[in-house]
């Protein structure tokens, strides 16, 4: 090879290099753009589905309360979703994600999107905010169901603001924000069995204790059922929640634009679905065996229990493991519903069995399918978050109780909150007893 040819060859290789490099850059940016779009749209669509869970909770709860309190629970559900939206913007989001690695408390700062230049991001900041916000709203919805039929509207909304603005975000920062539990204990909670559901459940049980049971629920040691007024609506609610859970668990993958992500989401969908089915079938069989009657309302709670159980880890388990995890959630629900009654904790819609107890179960069973998780790490997370949420919620409830009061007057409770607080009736034409 002479110099000239060498030059030509050099040119050649240099040219190729440029071409390849330019191509690679372009390709990389295209790939990145495509992934950005996939991830962003995915989180928006899944977030939209989770948002619809608000309607699910609303229908479930409106169906399970007595008709004299149905309009009030509807008002609470749409209001709490609105409060959550405001609080996550004003404080919550930056409390969750403004925490430093291994830290315990994030930043107090109104959120605004940082992604003026989106080219470096995996997905749009707004889409992330939206998805996180709808998760927070879920937590607040859980509380409203348990305390229905006797709590006053405004104190409830004050608690909701504190829950969605402070309590939830702080504990969520420990895990999803990369804080203490994530950094020190490798606590693993994929879509929030503990962070979302048990948190809602702890806040609910604290409220139920401070608030006390509905008048007449526990009479002379007997449990006096107060049957839900509209079971088809409650069933619709359970179906909507089930649907929403695909968004909840699937969306928590937080990315969709690659083989791995799309495959993972698919597996999450399947596991989520079989866990819910297993929860349904277990409660169906158990209530038939125990009570000789298949109890629709427990079966609905069973579906939710199965869903909560798989939420901590919907990706790692094999299908048969997901079935077992969901089925045991159904067992827990069936057992826990009457046990709560034993302790005179009046949980109108079964929020505590489904979200708290199954939330703990789902979190503790993670190591079974996910090797990176440890039982001890999970336990620390469950206890630490549980303790934090329960104690703080309890204090807030007590504070509210002894200042503005949280409980409707006995007269108003007997009359029904709809007439008392709203001045209207949910079903004014269908005279209830």
């Amino acid at each position: 090879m002479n110099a000239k040819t060498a030059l030509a060859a050099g040119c050649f290789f240099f040219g190729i290099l440029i071409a390849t490099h330019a191509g690679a850059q372009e390709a990389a940016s295209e790939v990145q753009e495509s992934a950005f779009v996939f991830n962003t749209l995915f989180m928006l669509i899944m977030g939209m589905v989770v948002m619809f869970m608000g309607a699910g909770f609303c229908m479930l709860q409106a169906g399970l309360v007595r008709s004299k309190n149905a309009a009030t629970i509807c008002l609470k559900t749409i209001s709490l979703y609105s409060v959550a939206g405001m609080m996550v913007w004003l404080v919550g989001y930056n409390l969750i994600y403004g925490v430093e690695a291994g830290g315990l408390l994030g930043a107090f700062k109104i959120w605004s999107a940082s992604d003026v230049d989106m080219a470096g991001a995996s997905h749009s900041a707004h889409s992330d905010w939206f998805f996180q916000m709808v998760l927070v709203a879920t937590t607040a919805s859980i509380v409203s169901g348990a305390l229905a039929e006797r709590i006053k509207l405004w104190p409830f909304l004050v608690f909701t603001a504190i829950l969605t603005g402070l309590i939830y975000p702080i504990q969520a920062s420990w895990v999803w924000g990369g804080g203490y539990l994530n950094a020190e204990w490798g606590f693993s909670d994929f879509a929030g069995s503990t962070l979302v559901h048990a948190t809602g459940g702890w806040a609910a049980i604290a409220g139920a204790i401070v608030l006390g049971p509905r008048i007449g629920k526990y009479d002379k040691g007997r449990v006096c059922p107060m049957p839900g007024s509209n079971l088809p609506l409650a069933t619709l609610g359970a179906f909507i929640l089930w649907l929403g859970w695909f968004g909840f668990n699937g969306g928590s993958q937080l990315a969709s634009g690659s083989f791995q992500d799309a495959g993972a989401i698919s597996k999450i969908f399947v596991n989520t679905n079989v866990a819910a089915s297993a929860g349904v079938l277990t409660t169906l069989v158990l209530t038939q065996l125990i009570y000789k009657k298949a109890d629709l309302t427990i079966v609905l709670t069973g579906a939710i229990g199965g869903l909560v159980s798989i939420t901590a880890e919907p990706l790692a388990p094999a299908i048969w493991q997901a079935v077992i995890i969901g089925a045991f959630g159904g067992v827990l629900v069936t057992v826990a519903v009457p046990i709560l009654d034993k302790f005179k904790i009046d949980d109108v819609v079964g929020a505590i069995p489904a979200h708290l107890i199954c939330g703990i179960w789902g979190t503790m069973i993670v190591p079974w399918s996910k090797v990176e998780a440890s039982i001890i790490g999970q336990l620390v997370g469950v206890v630490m978050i549980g303790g934090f949420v329960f104690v703080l919620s309890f204090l807030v409830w007590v504070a509210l109780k002894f200042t503005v009061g949280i409980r409707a007057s006995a007269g108003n409770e007997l009359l029904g909150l709809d007439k008392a607080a709203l001045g209207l009736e949910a079903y004014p034409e269908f005279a209830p007893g």
Partner: protein
Amino acid sequence: MRFIIAVIRPHKLDDVRNALTPLGVDGMTVTEVKGFGRQRGHKQVYRGAEYNVDFTPKLKIEIAVTEELVVAAVTAIRDAAHTGHIGDGKVFVIDLVDAMRVRTGEIGPTAL
């Protein structure tokens, strides 16, 4: 004139009405009621708590008739509403002092 109050099983309404029409009874007023009687209500389970619903849904039929018709009417109701099981219902007869048809203002037996 007499005012007959009959409490019957809901699904017997058509039978009772069909039994009364031939007698010349062409008006009656029906109310949905809850009956408490020897018939026990039914057990219901709700979220793991059993409880007894004490009442059974019944229909109350009110019929104003002339004196001559009372026995025939009560007999017709009995035959039509009878199943032989607890919960068949009761018939009460009350004295009717006066009656008026609102449309015409007619008073007394012709108003029935």
